[in-house]
């Protein structure tokens, strides 16, 4: 039986939204420039300081779904559930920072990873990565709008569609003009509001709901697995698939790459470490509400686990703290949504227009800015349309996650190994997807020889994921030792076992197939790529020079600038 829940009046919700979005819009106007710089619109000049970048990285990595999912994990798997969501997600920020340092060293002035892939390999690799980024960001945008619509409809008299429009309009309002610069600056405000809210709300609910005494009275509501901090069920169903998935998200997601290119190069390490701790503590902390709900025997409306957090908040918080909770969730979804808009605009500006339509030297910064802003409007409209259809986004998210999983090795190897070719990159990613899809969606029977082969690939995937993580910090030899060792140790336990966990197996298969094929197609290649070329070709578009095209000239080779001609 749940306590009686409370909500807001229409006027209160309007005032809270005006306060939140009005405040962020005001801040964005303080940094707005009549003539924005195209590179500043995408990466803010590549010299953001620690405070803003750490706040922005944290805010971007936390979306509304991560809080809901962490609480769901706590409610489903018990006391270790939030750890198996939040800790692995947090560690992935940490694990990618060594790669981040390498990426910045190779491409100090780039705007997107896809842009670097264009220089490194060519169009097909670039468009494969950019395409996955676009799909991922649109889905993320839609998911955040849905979360906003659900929250507003749950806590106020407004309906879902009105909530979606309010959130979409608010985010677009403050992001449109200054792009990434507005996104990261408002992220600071939003993350402080979110962190402050968690620091107050979680302890408040803890005591208001009758804890710590409820740990005793409600202990019978937990199964043996839910009471066990070392629950194998929690690890195999939540933790392990998530470890494989979030490494892919961290590498493949343009919102993270964009911040990597924006932060001052010497501040990459403290930024990533702070974001790791901030993300982990916040998401695990909110996830504890799911654990508390489990002890209380709390039953979310309709059995929908996404209702746990809002209903716990509405049940135990007084009006003023409920308003703070509302701002926390709106902040979480808005900070990720504005990052998605900035990511999408950068991809359209740099990858589509800058390198594929106009060409690097012919690209007009003003046209780029116009394209960036139009992209934001179009993406918002598309995400609102998709959100209003209330689609089930799980399959789409799984698909994008797998696409990024298939991309991880080819992308990372392209920054270290001179032999990786465009053909190896492209074929390995397509092959990995071709194996992933039937495994993930149970299109092939997981029995007999097929199951053994899939398990073999999945076991290799375990070694590859751990090896990649070790490679970033310790180099090739320790990575090989850990990867091979992990594969050998895991193998006896995995055969005959992993076939029952297709989500985990499919993710691991995406890693192993792309890695094996990319390696086999590259190790005999004679290519000896010069990495210094990337810094020369993936740089600023808006240098203050007027682009001038020579008649009948090839766009990338025979175009010059006014300054060069003078």
């Amino acid at each position, binding site marked *: 039986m749940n306590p009686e829940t409370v909500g807001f009046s229409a006027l209160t919700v309007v005032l809270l939204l005006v306060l939140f979005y009005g405040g962020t819009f005001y801040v964005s106007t303080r*940094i707005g420039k009549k003539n924005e710089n195209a590179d500043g619109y995408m990466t*803010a000049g590549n010299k*953001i*300081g*620690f*405070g*803003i970048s*750490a*706040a922005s990285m*944290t805010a971007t990595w936390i979306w509304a779904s991560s809080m809901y999912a962490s609480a769901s994990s706590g409610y489903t798997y018990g*006391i270790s559930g939030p750890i198996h969501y939040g800790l692995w997600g947090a560690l992935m920020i940490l694990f990618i920072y060594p790669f981040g340092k390498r990426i910045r060293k190779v491409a100090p002035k780039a705007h997107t990873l896809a842009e670097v892939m264009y220089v490194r390999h060519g169009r097909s690799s670039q468009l494969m990565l950019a395409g996955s980024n676009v799909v991922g960001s649109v889905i993320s945008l839609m998911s955040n709008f849905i979360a906003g619509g659900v929250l507003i409809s749950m806590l106020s008299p407004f309906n879902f569609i009105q909530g979606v429009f309010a959130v979409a309009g608010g985010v677009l309002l403050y992001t449109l003009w200054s792009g990434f*610069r507005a996104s*990261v*600056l408002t992220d*600071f405000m939003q*993350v*402080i509001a979110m*962190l*402050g809210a*968690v*620091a*107050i709300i*979680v*302890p408040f609910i*803890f005591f208001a709901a009758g*804890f*710590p*005494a409820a*740990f*005793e009275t409600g202990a019978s509501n937990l199964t043996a697995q839910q009471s066990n901090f070392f629950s194998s069920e929690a690890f195999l169903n939540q933790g392990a698939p998530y470890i494989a998935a979030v490494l892919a998200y961290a590498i493949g997601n343009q919102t993270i790459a964009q911040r990597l290119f924006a932060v001052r190069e010497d501040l990459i390490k403290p930024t990533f470490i*702070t974001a790791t*701790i*901030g993300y982990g*503590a*916040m998401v*695990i*902390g909110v996830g*504890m509400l799911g*654990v*508390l709900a489990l002890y209380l025997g709390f039953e979310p409306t309709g059995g929908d686990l996404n209702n746990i957090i809002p209903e716990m908040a509405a049940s135990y918080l007084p009006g003023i703290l409920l308003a703070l909770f509302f701002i926390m969730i709106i902040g979480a979804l808005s900070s990720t949504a504005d990052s998605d808009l900035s990511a999408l605009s950068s991809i359209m500006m740099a990858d589509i227009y800058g390198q594929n339509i106009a060409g690097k030297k012919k690209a007009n910064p003003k046209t780029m800015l116009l394209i960036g802003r139009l992209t934001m409007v179009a993406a918002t409209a598309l995400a609102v349309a998709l959100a209003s259809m209330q689609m089930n986004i799980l399959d789409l998210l799984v698909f994008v996650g797998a696409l990024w999983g298939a991309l991880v090795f080819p992308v990372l190897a392209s920054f270290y190994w001179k032999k990786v070719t465009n053909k190896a990159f492209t074929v390995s990613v397509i092959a990995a997807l071709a194996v992933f899809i039937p495994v993930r969606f149970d299109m092939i029977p997981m029995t007999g020889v097929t199951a053994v082969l899939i398990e073999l690939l999945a076991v290799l995937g375990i070694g590859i994921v751990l090896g990649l993580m070790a490679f970033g910090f310790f180099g090739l030899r320790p990575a090989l030792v850990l990867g091979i060792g992990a594969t050998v140790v895991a193998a006896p336990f995995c055969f005959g076992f992993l076939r029952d966990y297709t989500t985990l197996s499919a993710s691991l298969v995406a890693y192993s197939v792309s890695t094996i094929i990319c390696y086999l197609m590259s190790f005999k290649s004679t290519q000896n790529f010069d990495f210094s070329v990337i810094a020369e070709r993936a740089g600023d578009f808006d240098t203050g020079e007027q682009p001038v095209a020579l008649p009948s000239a090839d766009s990338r080779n025979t175009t010059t600038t006014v300054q060069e001609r003078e």
Partner: protein
Amino acid sequence: MLALSLYVLIWPVIVAVVAVVICKGFMSEVREAKRRGEDLI
């Protein structure tokens, strides 16, 4: 009970510490930008 209580309540404490660290970093960047006469971002 004590261990479980600490397990739940430690996260908001860490969150508060991170918020302070980020705020301090931000304020020093604001001061530095003012001192140099440059835009914060």
